[in-house]
Protein backbone atom coordinates (compact mmCIF):
# COMPACT_ATOMS: atom_id res chain seq x y z
CA UNK A 1 0.00 0.00 0.00
CA UNK A 2 1.43 3.35 -1.04
CA UNK A 3 -0.16 6.52 0.28
CA UNK A 4 0.24 9.69 -1.78
CA UNK A 5 -1.26 13.10 -2.56
CA UNK A 6 -4.62 13.37 -4.34
CA UNK A 7 -6.53 16.42 -5.48
CA UNK A 8 -6.03 18.40 -2.27
CA UNK A 9 -7.60 21.67 -3.51
CA UNK A 10 -6.45 24.38 -1.10
CA UNK A 11 -5.48 22.07 1.76
CA UNK A 12 -1.95 20.99 2.61
CA UNK A 13 -1.44 17.54 1.04
CA UNK A 14 1.09 16.42 3.68
CA UNK A 15 -1.43 17.17 6.40
CA UNK A 16 -4.06 15.08 4.57
CA UNK A 17 -1.54 12.25 4.09
CA UNK A 18 -0.80 12.32 7.84
CA UNK A 19 -4.47 12.20 8.75
CA UNK A 20 -5.15 9.31 6.35
CA UNK A 21 -2.10 7.37 7.56
CA UNK A 22 -3.49 7.38 11.10
CA UNK A 23 -6.33 5.19 9.85
CA UNK A 24 -3.98 2.65 8.26
CA UNK A 25 -3.21 -0.27 10.56
CA UNK A 26 0.02 -1.30 8.81
CA UNK A 27 3.42 -0.05 10.01
CA UNK A 28 5.30 2.16 7.59
CA UNK A 29 7.97 0.10 5.84
CA UNK A 30 5.98 -3.13 6.24
CA UNK A 31 3.89 -3.38 3.04
CA UNK A 32 3.00 0.28 3.51
CA UNK A 33 4.90 3.33 2.29
CA UNK A 34 4.24 7.06 2.13
CA UNK A 35 5.40 8.73 -1.10
CA UNK A 36 4.03 12.30 -1.20
CA UNK A 37 4.72 12.95 -4.91
CA UNK A 38 2.01 11.15 -6.88
CA UNK A 39 4.26 10.55 -9.87
CA UNK A 40 6.96 8.99 -7.66
CA UNK A 41 4.34 6.94 -5.84
CA UNK A 42 3.03 5.41 -9.08
CA UNK A 43 6.59 4.83 -10.28
CA UNK A 44 7.41 3.04 -6.99
CA UNK A 45 4.33 0.83 -7.30
CA UNK A 46 5.27 -0.22 -10.84
CA UNK A 47 8.87 -0.94 -9.80
CA UNK A 48 7.97 -3.16 -6.84
CA UNK A 49 5.08 -4.97 -8.60
CA UNK A 50 5.82 -8.59 -9.48
CA UNK A 51 4.35 -11.04 -12.00
CA UNK A 52 0.69 -11.94 -11.29
CA UNK A 53 0.27 -8.85 -9.09
CA UNK A 54 -2.56 -6.35 -9.55
CA UNK A 55 -1.68 -2.66 -9.22
CA UNK A 56 -4.57 -0.31 -8.49
CA UNK A 57 -3.99 3.40 -8.96
CA UNK A 58 -6.92 5.01 -7.18
CA UNK A 59 -8.00 8.60 -6.75
CA UNK A 60 -8.99 11.62 -8.77
Amino acid at each position, binding site marked *: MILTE*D*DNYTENSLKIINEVSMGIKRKEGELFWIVPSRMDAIRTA*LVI*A*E*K*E*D*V*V*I*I*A*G*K
Partner: protein
Amino acid sequence: MFSTANYSINGQWSENNIKMTSPSPFILQKLLKEAKEAGCEYAVIETSSHSIFYNRNYGIDYDVAVLTNISQDHLDLHKTMENYAATKLQLFTNLVSYRRKPGVRKVAVINIDSDYASMFLREPTPDIMYSYGMAANAQISSQNIHHYKEGTEFEIKMPSNIISIKTKLRGNFNVSNILAAVSVLISQKIDIPTIVEAIESVEVIPGRLEEIENNRGFMVFVDYAHTEDSLRNILETIKQME
Protein backbone atom coordinates in the same frame (compact mmCIF):
# COMPACT_ATOMS: atom_id res chain seq x y z
CA MET B 1 -22.22 13.61 -22.79
CA PHE B 2 -20.72 15.59 -19.97
CA SER B 3 -19.10 13.69 -17.10
CA THR B 4 -16.42 13.87 -14.44
CA ALA B 5 -13.88 12.15 -16.67
CA ASN B 6 -14.52 13.70 -20.07
CA TYR B 7 -16.84 15.40 -22.57
CA SER B 8 -18.07 13.95 -25.79
CA ILE B 9 -20.03 15.75 -28.47
CA ASN B 10 -21.33 13.49 -31.22
CA GLY B 11 -18.50 11.00 -30.75
CA GLN B 12 -15.74 13.61 -30.38
CA TRP B 13 -14.07 13.16 -26.99
CA SER B 14 -12.19 15.68 -24.95
CA GLU B 15 -10.88 15.39 -21.44
CA ASN B 16 -12.61 17.14 -18.54
CA ASN B 17 -9.62 18.78 -16.90
CA ILE B 18 -11.37 21.22 -14.60
CA LYS B 19 -11.48 18.65 -11.76
CA MET B 20 -15.19 19.31 -11.35
CA THR B 21 -18.00 17.12 -12.57
CA SER B 22 -20.05 20.02 -13.91
CA PRO B 23 -18.70 23.25 -15.37
CA SER B 24 -20.28 26.69 -14.83
CA PRO B 25 -23.66 27.33 -16.53
CA PHE B 26 -21.95 29.57 -19.09
CA ILE B 27 -19.55 26.85 -20.23
CA LEU B 28 -22.21 24.14 -20.04
CA GLN B 29 -24.68 26.15 -22.17
CA LYS B 30 -21.95 26.81 -24.72
CA LEU B 31 -21.13 23.09 -24.87
CA LEU B 32 -24.83 22.24 -25.21
CA LYS B 33 -25.10 24.67 -28.12
CA GLU B 34 -22.08 23.01 -29.76
CA ALA B 35 -23.75 19.64 -29.22
CA LYS B 36 -27.00 20.80 -30.81
CA GLU B 37 -25.15 22.21 -33.80
CA ALA B 38 -23.31 18.90 -34.16
CA GLY B 39 -26.70 17.19 -34.49
CA CYS B 40 -27.05 15.67 -31.00
CA GLU B 41 -30.61 14.89 -29.90
CA TYR B 42 -29.86 13.95 -26.30
CA ALA B 43 -27.50 15.34 -23.69
CA VAL B 44 -26.34 13.19 -20.78
CA ILE B 45 -25.08 15.38 -17.96
CA GLU B 46 -23.46 13.92 -14.86
CA THR B 47 -24.91 16.24 -12.24
CA SER B 48 -23.03 16.39 -8.96
CA SER B 49 -24.46 17.62 -5.68
CA HIS B 50 -21.99 20.51 -5.95
CA SER B 51 -23.55 21.58 -9.23
CA ILE B 52 -27.05 21.47 -7.70
CA PHE B 53 -25.86 23.35 -4.61
CA TYR B 54 -24.13 26.05 -6.66
CA ASN B 55 -26.79 26.14 -9.41
CA ARG B 56 -24.27 25.14 -12.05
CA ASN B 57 -27.14 23.43 -13.86
CA TYR B 58 -29.13 26.69 -13.99
CA GLY B 59 -31.33 26.91 -17.08
CA ILE B 60 -31.36 23.18 -17.84
CA ASP B 61 -34.84 21.63 -17.92
CA TYR B 62 -33.98 17.99 -17.35
CA ASP B 63 -36.38 15.39 -18.76
CA VAL B 64 -34.85 12.41 -16.97
CA ALA B 65 -33.21 12.31 -13.54
CA VAL B 66 -31.20 9.27 -12.41
CA LEU B 67 -30.07 8.47 -8.87
CA THR B 68 -27.07 6.13 -9.08
CA ASN B 69 -25.95 6.26 -5.48
CA ILE B 70 -25.02 8.42 -2.53
CA SER B 71 -21.92 7.43 -0.58
CA GLN B 72 -19.69 9.29 1.80
CA ASP B 73 -18.14 12.16 -0.16
CA HIS B 74 -18.32 15.95 -0.41
CA LEU B 75 -18.84 16.33 3.33
CA ASP B 76 -16.60 19.41 3.29
CA LEU B 77 -19.53 21.12 1.54
CA HIS B 78 -22.62 19.35 2.89
CA LYS B 79 -21.41 18.55 6.46
CA THR B 80 -23.87 15.66 6.90
CA MET B 81 -25.02 12.79 4.68
CA GLU B 82 -28.62 13.92 5.22
CA ASN B 83 -27.85 17.34 3.72
CA TYR B 84 -25.99 15.68 0.88
CA ALA B 85 -28.98 13.43 0.06
CA ALA B 86 -31.40 16.36 0.39
CA THR B 87 -29.33 18.34 -2.12
CA LYS B 88 -29.48 15.49 -4.64
CA LEU B 89 -33.20 15.12 -4.00
CA GLN B 90 -33.76 18.70 -5.23
CA LEU B 91 -33.09 17.55 -8.79
CA PHE B 92 -35.97 15.06 -8.50
CA THR B 93 -38.32 17.48 -6.77
CA ASN B 94 -37.65 20.05 -9.48
CA LEU B 95 -38.28 17.57 -12.28
CA VAL B 96 -42.03 18.29 -12.09
CA SER B 97 -41.57 22.04 -12.41
CA TYR B 98 -38.96 21.95 -15.19
CA ARG B 99 -40.25 23.25 -18.52
CA ARG B 100 -41.82 20.57 -20.69
CA LYS B 101 -41.14 19.95 -24.34
CA PRO B 102 -44.34 18.89 -26.13
CA GLY B 103 -44.89 15.14 -25.84
CA VAL B 104 -41.77 14.51 -23.76
CA ARG B 105 -42.37 12.71 -20.47
CA LYS B 106 -40.56 13.53 -17.24
CA VAL B 107 -38.86 10.40 -15.92
CA ALA B 108 -37.21 9.50 -12.60
CA VAL B 109 -34.86 6.50 -12.45
CA ILE B 110 -33.86 5.29 -8.97
CA ASN B 111 -31.25 2.77 -7.85
CA ILE B 112 -33.12 0.86 -5.15
CA ASP B 113 -29.87 -0.62 -3.81
CA SER B 114 -28.98 2.84 -2.54
CA ASP B 115 -29.40 3.43 1.21
CA TYR B 116 -31.28 6.61 0.33
CA ALA B 117 -33.60 5.10 -2.31
CA SER B 118 -36.77 5.31 -0.19
CA MET B 119 -36.34 9.08 0.12
CA PHE B 120 -36.34 9.36 -3.68
CA LEU B 121 -39.10 6.78 -4.27
CA ARG B 122 -41.40 8.81 -2.02
CA GLU B 123 -40.99 11.90 -4.18
CA PRO B 124 -44.17 12.62 -6.20
CA THR B 125 -43.27 11.31 -9.59
CA PRO B 126 -43.50 13.30 -12.77
CA ASP B 127 -44.78 10.87 -15.41
CA ILE B 128 -42.83 7.65 -15.00
CA MET B 129 -40.58 6.21 -12.31
CA TYR B 130 -38.31 3.22 -12.86
CA SER B 131 -36.47 1.40 -10.10
CA TYR B 132 -33.35 -0.55 -10.98
CA GLY B 133 -30.84 -2.55 -8.98
CA MET B 134 -29.30 -5.87 -8.07
CA ALA B 135 -32.21 -6.42 -5.65
CA ALA B 136 -34.85 -8.71 -7.17
CA ASN B 137 -37.71 -6.33 -6.34
CA ALA B 138 -36.36 -3.69 -8.73
CA GLN B 139 -38.41 -3.21 -11.89
CA ILE B 140 -35.21 -3.56 -13.88
CA SER B 141 -32.82 -5.96 -12.18
CA SER B 142 -29.76 -8.10 -12.89
CA GLN B 143 -29.47 -11.86 -12.44
CA ASN B 144 -27.00 -14.70 -13.15
CA ILE B 145 -23.97 -12.43 -13.04
CA HIS B 146 -20.64 -14.01 -14.04
CA HIS B 147 -17.38 -12.08 -13.70
CA TYR B 148 -14.50 -12.89 -16.02
CA LYS B 149 -11.09 -11.35 -16.61
CA GLU B 150 -12.38 -10.18 -20.00
CA GLY B 151 -15.62 -8.71 -18.69
CA THR B 152 -19.02 -9.63 -17.32
CA GLU B 153 -22.00 -11.68 -18.49
CA PHE B 154 -25.42 -11.28 -16.93
CA GLU B 155 -29.14 -11.07 -17.60
CA ILE B 156 -31.38 -8.06 -17.24
CA LYS B 157 -34.85 -8.83 -15.98
CA MET B 158 -37.47 -6.32 -17.07
CA PRO B 159 -41.21 -6.35 -16.45
CA SER B 160 -41.85 -7.70 -19.96
CA ASN B 161 -38.78 -9.79 -20.81
CA ILE B 162 -35.23 -10.93 -19.99
CA ILE B 163 -32.20 -9.96 -22.07
CA SER B 164 -28.64 -11.35 -21.97
CA ILE B 165 -25.71 -8.95 -21.88
CA LYS B 166 -22.01 -9.51 -22.50
CA THR B 167 -19.91 -6.51 -21.59
CA LYS B 168 -16.20 -5.77 -21.48
CA LEU B 169 -16.82 -3.72 -18.34
CA ARG B 170 -16.01 -5.36 -15.01
CA GLY B 171 -17.48 -5.24 -11.56
CA ASN B 172 -20.90 -5.10 -9.99
CA PHE B 173 -20.84 -1.29 -10.03
CA ASN B 174 -20.69 -1.45 -13.82
CA VAL B 175 -23.60 -3.94 -13.90
CA SER B 176 -25.54 -1.47 -11.76
CA ASN B 177 -24.63 1.45 -14.04
CA ILE B 178 -25.67 -0.56 -17.11
CA LEU B 179 -29.07 -1.16 -15.46
CA ALA B 180 -29.38 2.61 -15.01
CA ALA B 181 -28.53 3.23 -18.66
CA VAL B 182 -31.01 0.56 -19.82
CA SER B 183 -33.78 2.10 -17.67
CA VAL B 184 -33.19 5.51 -19.25
CA LEU B 185 -33.07 4.09 -22.77
CA ILE B 186 -36.32 2.17 -22.25
CA SER B 187 -37.96 5.36 -20.98
CA GLN B 188 -36.94 7.01 -24.25
CA LYS B 189 -38.53 4.13 -26.20
CA ILE B 190 -35.23 2.97 -27.71
CA ASP B 191 -35.68 -0.62 -28.99
CA ILE B 192 -33.98 -3.53 -27.18
CA PRO B 193 -31.61 -4.65 -30.01
CA THR B 194 -30.24 -1.08 -30.25
CA ILE B 195 -29.75 -0.96 -26.47
CA VAL B 196 -27.92 -4.31 -26.38
CA GLU B 197 -25.70 -3.34 -29.30
CA ALA B 198 -24.80 -0.02 -27.68
CA ILE B 199 -23.92 -1.59 -24.31
CA GLU B 200 -21.86 -4.37 -25.84
CA SER B 201 -19.87 -1.90 -27.94
CA VAL B 202 -18.53 -0.04 -24.89
CA GLU B 203 -14.83 -0.89 -24.53
CA VAL B 204 -13.87 1.02 -21.41
CA ILE B 205 -15.07 3.83 -19.18
CA PRO B 206 -12.05 6.11 -18.67
CA GLY B 207 -10.92 6.06 -15.05
CA ARG B 208 -13.38 3.33 -14.07
CA LEU B 209 -11.24 0.26 -13.57
CA GLU B 210 -9.39 1.21 -16.74
CA GLU B 211 -6.73 -1.38 -17.54
CA ILE B 212 -3.27 -0.19 -18.59
CA GLU B 213 -1.70 -2.76 -20.92
CA ASN B 214 1.90 -3.65 -20.06
CA ASN B 215 4.46 -6.38 -20.78
CA ARG B 216 5.62 -6.91 -17.21
CA GLY B 217 3.25 -9.76 -16.36
CA PHE B 218 1.08 -7.88 -13.88
CA MET B 219 -2.17 -5.99 -14.23
CA VAL B 220 -2.51 -2.23 -13.73
CA PHE B 221 -5.85 -0.51 -13.20
CA VAL B 222 -6.58 3.19 -12.90
CA ASP B 223 -9.71 4.00 -10.95
CA TYR B 224 -11.32 7.24 -9.84
CA ALA B 225 -12.16 5.64 -6.47
CA HIS B 226 -11.59 8.00 -3.60
CA THR B 227 -14.38 7.09 -1.20
CA GLU B 228 -14.73 4.15 1.17
CA ASP B 229 -17.56 2.72 -0.93
CA SER B 230 -15.78 3.01 -4.28
CA LEU B 231 -12.47 1.62 -2.97
CA ARG B 232 -14.27 -1.37 -1.44
CA ASN B 233 -16.08 -1.88 -4.77
CA ILE B 234 -12.93 -2.06 -6.89
CA LEU B 235 -11.10 -4.33 -4.41
CA GLU B 236 -14.08 -6.73 -4.35
CA THR B 237 -14.33 -6.64 -8.14
CA ILE B 238 -10.68 -7.55 -8.54
CA LYS B 239 -11.02 -10.42 -6.05
CA GLN B 240 -14.00 -11.81 -8.01
CA MET B 241 -12.11 -11.75 -11.32
CA GLU B 242 -10.66 -15.13 -12.24
